């Protein structure tokens, strides 16, 4: 089956070709069969490959397709590599991807006030892009060299751009200010970016990160003379001895790419705006798969990071800082999808903290569980949006639990998993990360546990406001209804995964089997001198675990207290800390900061170049000036041409006489 792994990429490409070229002709129903079917088939191929890999104990199988480019000593083949890491990613991408495709077949059908269903205007275009994303993501994870990783890296970026901007003609939306009660000025919110602007922002911010990634790839080539993973990693230890500065540079440059793609400080700004895309896109790309590419990259090239401990520490610090920072913003967001978006940024921070402290398995574990529960939460949010005609402001929801039972229950499950409620999947993975972080730096752990508390709080804040209490907008409430089977199907399957996903990596210290630990062994390069693992005392581990559990439960309870028992508290609190509240509500003014510091000066510089330097100085002064100079000189000489034939003839005669006299007199 491993030899057929190219099918996982070829099938979605086939799907996108069919839907892209003939989508309008074959009709939307056929489109909505083909697109999920291709992903399902790819998933099945992935399952086959999984058994293959398990069969030969994780040894990598390389499938050579063709040679991409050869120039002198630069040679890059198009190879696919099947090993535990790539198969894991393939299964997550196609598995969650399939569910989301199924979900989308119902989500992209809008029902109007009279209960009539209408397919989205560009139904087939949506599924074309969605299949394109799956194919790109698989290129990213299956390539056996850095070039293919970079190719996939860019392609997922463009799929994301296309899908965020899918509703390209929608304008930007104003947001209603947050009311802080009587006698207090409401906190005004910035308008939401239009989908087309959001898509562009995502692509460009990603590209800034890609510059780092590309330079990292160039540095790898000029150091190792190859881009193949196995050759590069085999040489890495040797290189780090002969050229100690190179590996940290490579690690840092590649991480810049990860910062962009995985939305870490300072390049996280695109992800919240990416919510302008359709919700399945947010679930698939901006929660479950694409944004975790950075984590995958670091796990894949773990040897660089193990050889560059200072860079790894930087990764961990940036990760944890992002986790904390994004969580604070999520506390006050009023847009359900944005709460989840900041939560995604925050959870990605956890993953980077994990891989930064060398806990690659823990990072991958959280990547997987996060894919399940965050996809679930987004799809739940989408289901709510669908029921409420695209209203996503939680201040207009309330009491939805009676109207949409399945959505409500599954959303709860997702929320519990995200909050790290004991025995849910998120609990195990988050706990493993926090334990590993604690072993390296208790300070980072402290921020981690604070973040965990905030996570539990903001998740349930959203749940209580949206699903419980009294309806705030009766009209919307009246029209709300449970979503159709494709949507609830995806929700239920993901909910099951969100509950039981934790069995992949049960805590080792409780002597439970940790499947992932041994599974990823083959792709993790053990350093000869780094034998000491972070083994902590049983008591410490248990204490940490109990602390996480307690923090999660108290976060949930605090949310219950604030939003169910004493709903006046949050508003009063916000009023008394108005500056802080406004700061959070405005996302620390980071977007405005970037705009003033980078975008506007850039545009101003451009304008100065275009209107000043280019037009006035270079063109009009130098180029046309030179022409004018010659023109003026010529104008002076042209005075000699007086137009009288006689004088021309005279000049000729004089010239002849001078010439003849020269010959005679010399």
């Amino acid at each position: 089956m491993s030899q057929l792994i190219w099918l996982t990429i070829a099938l979605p490409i086939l799907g996108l070709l069919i839907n892209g070229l003939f989508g309008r002709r074959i009709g939307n129903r056929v489109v909505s069969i083909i697109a999920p079917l291709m992903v399902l088939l790819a998933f099945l191929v992935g399952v086959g490959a999984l058994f293959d890999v398990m069969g030969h104990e994780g040894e990598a199988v390389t499938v050579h397709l063709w040679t991409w480019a050869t120039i002198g000593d630069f040679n890059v083949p198009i190879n696919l590599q099947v090993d535990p890491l790539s198969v894991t990613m393939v299964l997550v991408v196609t598995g969650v991807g399939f569910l989301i495709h199924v979900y989308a077949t119902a989500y992209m059908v809008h029902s109007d006030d009279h209960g009539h269903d209408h397919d989205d205007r560009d139904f087939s275009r949506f599924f074309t892009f969605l299949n394109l994303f799956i194919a790109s993501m698989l290129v990213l994870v299956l390539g056996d060299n850095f070039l293919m990783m970079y190719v996939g890296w860019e392609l997922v970026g463009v799929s994301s751009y296309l899908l965020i901007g899918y509703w390209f003609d929608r304008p930007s939306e104003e947001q209603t200010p947050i009311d802080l009660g009587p006698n207090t000025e409401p906190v005004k919110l910035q308008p939401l970016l239009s989908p087309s602007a959001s898509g562009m922002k995502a692509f460009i911010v990603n590209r800034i990160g890609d510059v780092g990634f590309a330079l990292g790839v160039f540095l790898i080539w000029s150091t190792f003379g190859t881009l193949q993973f196995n050759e590069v990693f085999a040489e890495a230890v040797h290189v780090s001895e002969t050229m100690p500065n190179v590996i940290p540079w490579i690690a840092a440059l590649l991480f810049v790419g990860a910062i962009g793609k995985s939305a870490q400080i300072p390049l996280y700004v695109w992800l919240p705006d990416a919510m302008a895309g359709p919700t399945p896109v947010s679930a698939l790309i901006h929660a479950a798969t694409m944004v975790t590419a950075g984590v995958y990259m670091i796990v894949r090239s773990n040897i660089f990071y193990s050889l560059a401990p200072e860079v790894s520490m930087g990764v961990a610090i940036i990760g944890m800082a992002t986790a904390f920072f994004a969580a604070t913003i999520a506390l006050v967001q009023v847009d359900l999808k944005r709460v989840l978006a900041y939560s995604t940024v925050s959870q990605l921070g956890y993953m980077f903290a994990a891989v930064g402290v060398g806990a690659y398995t823990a990072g991958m574990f959280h990547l997987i569980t996060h894919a399940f529960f965050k996809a679930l939460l987004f799809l739940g949010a989408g289901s709510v949006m669908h029921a409420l005609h695209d209203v996503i402001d939680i201040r207009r929801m309330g009491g939805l639990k009676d109207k949409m039972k399945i959505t409500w229950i599954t959303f709860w499950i997702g929320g519990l998993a995200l909050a790290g409620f004991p025995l849910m999947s998120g609990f195990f993975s988050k706990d493993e990360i926090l334990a590993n972080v604690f072993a390296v730096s208790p300070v980072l752990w402290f921020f981690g546990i604070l973040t965990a508390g905030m996570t539990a709080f903001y998740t349930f804040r959203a749940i209580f406001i949206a699903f419980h209490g009294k309806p705030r907008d009766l009209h919307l409430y009246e029209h709300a209804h449970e979503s159709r089977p494709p949507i609830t199907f995806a929700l239920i399957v993901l909910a099951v995964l969100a509950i039981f996903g934790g069995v992949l990596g049960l805590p080792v210290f409780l002597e439970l089997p940790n499947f992932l630990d041994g599974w990823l062994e083959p792709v993790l390069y053990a350093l000869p001198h780094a034998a000491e693992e972070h083994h902590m005392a049983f008591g410490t581990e248990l204490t940490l675990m109990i602390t996480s559990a307690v923090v999660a439960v108290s976060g949930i309870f605090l949310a219950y207290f604030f939003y169910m028992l004493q709903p006046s508290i949050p508003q009063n609190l916000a009023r008394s800390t108005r500056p802080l509240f406004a700061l959070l509500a405005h996302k620390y003014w980071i977007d405005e900061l970037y705009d003033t510091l980078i975008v506007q000066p850039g545009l101003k510089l451009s304008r100065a170049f275009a209107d000043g330097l280019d037009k006035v100085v270079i063109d009009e002064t130098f180029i046309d000036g030179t022409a004018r100079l010659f023109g003026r000189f010529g104008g002076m000489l042209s005075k000699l041409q007086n137009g009288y034939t006689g004088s021309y003839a005279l000049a000729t005669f004089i010239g002849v006489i001078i010439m003849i006299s020269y010959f005679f007199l010399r």
Partner: protein
Amino acid sequence: MILSLLILIPIVGAIVIAFVPRDQDNMIKWLAVGITALALLVSLPLYFNFQDGVSGYQFEEIRPWIPALNIGYHVGIDGLSLFLVLLTTFLTLISVISSWTAITDGLKEYMIFMLLLEAAVIGVFVSLDLFLYYLFWEASLIPMALLIGKWGGARRIYAAVKFIIYTMAGSTLMLVAALVLYVNAGTSDLPTLVSTLNLSQNLQIILFFAFALAFSVKVPLFPLHTWLPTAHTEAPTAGSIMLAGVLLKMGTYSYLRFAIPLFPDAVAYWSPMLVTLAIIGILYGALVALVQDDVKKLVAYSSVAHMGFIVLGTFSGGQQGMSGAVLQMVNHGLSTGMLFFLVGVLYEQRHTRLFSEYGGIWVKVPIFGTYFLLAVFSSVGLPGLNGFVGEFVILLGTFSVNPIAAALGTFGIVLAAWYLLTATRKVMMGPFNEANRNLKDMNMREAGIAFALILFCFIIGLFPNLLFDKINPATAQLAETISATTLIAGQ
């Protein structure tokens, strides 16, 4: 024989069209299509019979021309010129078809000039004799200037005069330098010159400058670029396709064909300067493109940026850079040609190219929108499409020689994304601009052209070795020439 045929077919075709009565529009069009298609067909064996892995010229032809002065008719191609010849025959056909309805006035002369332009440009790419080359080089100016001057926009005369005087002024010094070479060696045959010339380094430096000036105006390299936006905005669509697609390549190609092999000792002296200008061009062109309000001007400035990559690869990238540069010439021809063509499709219907006149038209013209996006992606350098291969290889090669230049160049691709996506957003996305309610989507002819162009973009993007296998021997030899001389200079 093929190469001479390629020069002759368009010339003979032009003469034939000259005898067609001027009211026979359809006959003229079909004749022009037939002739350019024939040229394309004749040029195909160049690819299929080209021998891989062999350095040196192929399809060579040497005949005495002015024997008294030892000037010969010597044509031939190698990996550097093969794809440029193919690009020329391909883009000329595309240009002729794209003018189907756009040109109504003076169609006969228009087609004649198109064909003469093709002949001259092919002549430039295949000439291996300095004087023959110079002849074609200057000859190519005339039809282009006339195309701009007669069928152009409002300021067409200004643009045409600027184009012709600017580029001609650039090449006068080259003529002087060519004469110096001729006097020194007694022949103008390029391979003989390369193998026998033994000039002092100082003389090489001076002569290199004279040649490079002509080429840099043509490329155009910052700050010699201002003729380009003017020429592009005024030129008719097909003129822009030819100008950006093949005429600019004459400059970058000539660096590789003449400046470097003839004056290898001067390369080390001048390349820091050229690399700096190329980097400035990449960043500056991108920034200026960002704030244009005319779509065509934006594409024109993007050409300045993209051509900067080619110069960067030529002068700093070793063999990888040079191969990438040759490939990027083809890439730029395809993707920018396609962008100009697509802008032309809109212009033909709306008679405006201002961003403010468009917006949200993707709803109305989905086929056009798809091709526009693909063209933009190709130009932005997205993997899977052609632009990526060239840029990646150029930057990779540059990095191992000059990491700072590579870093700045890589930053250029961020700016490329910025201005091209801004353009996409302004034209295709956002709320629908009602002024476009009568806009029609591409017809079969237009969609066919776009499909042909994008097909090659994908082929090059996925299987670049189809080209690299043929380009590499030539660039390997060049890279060796340079590194040999830098080694000697270093000792």
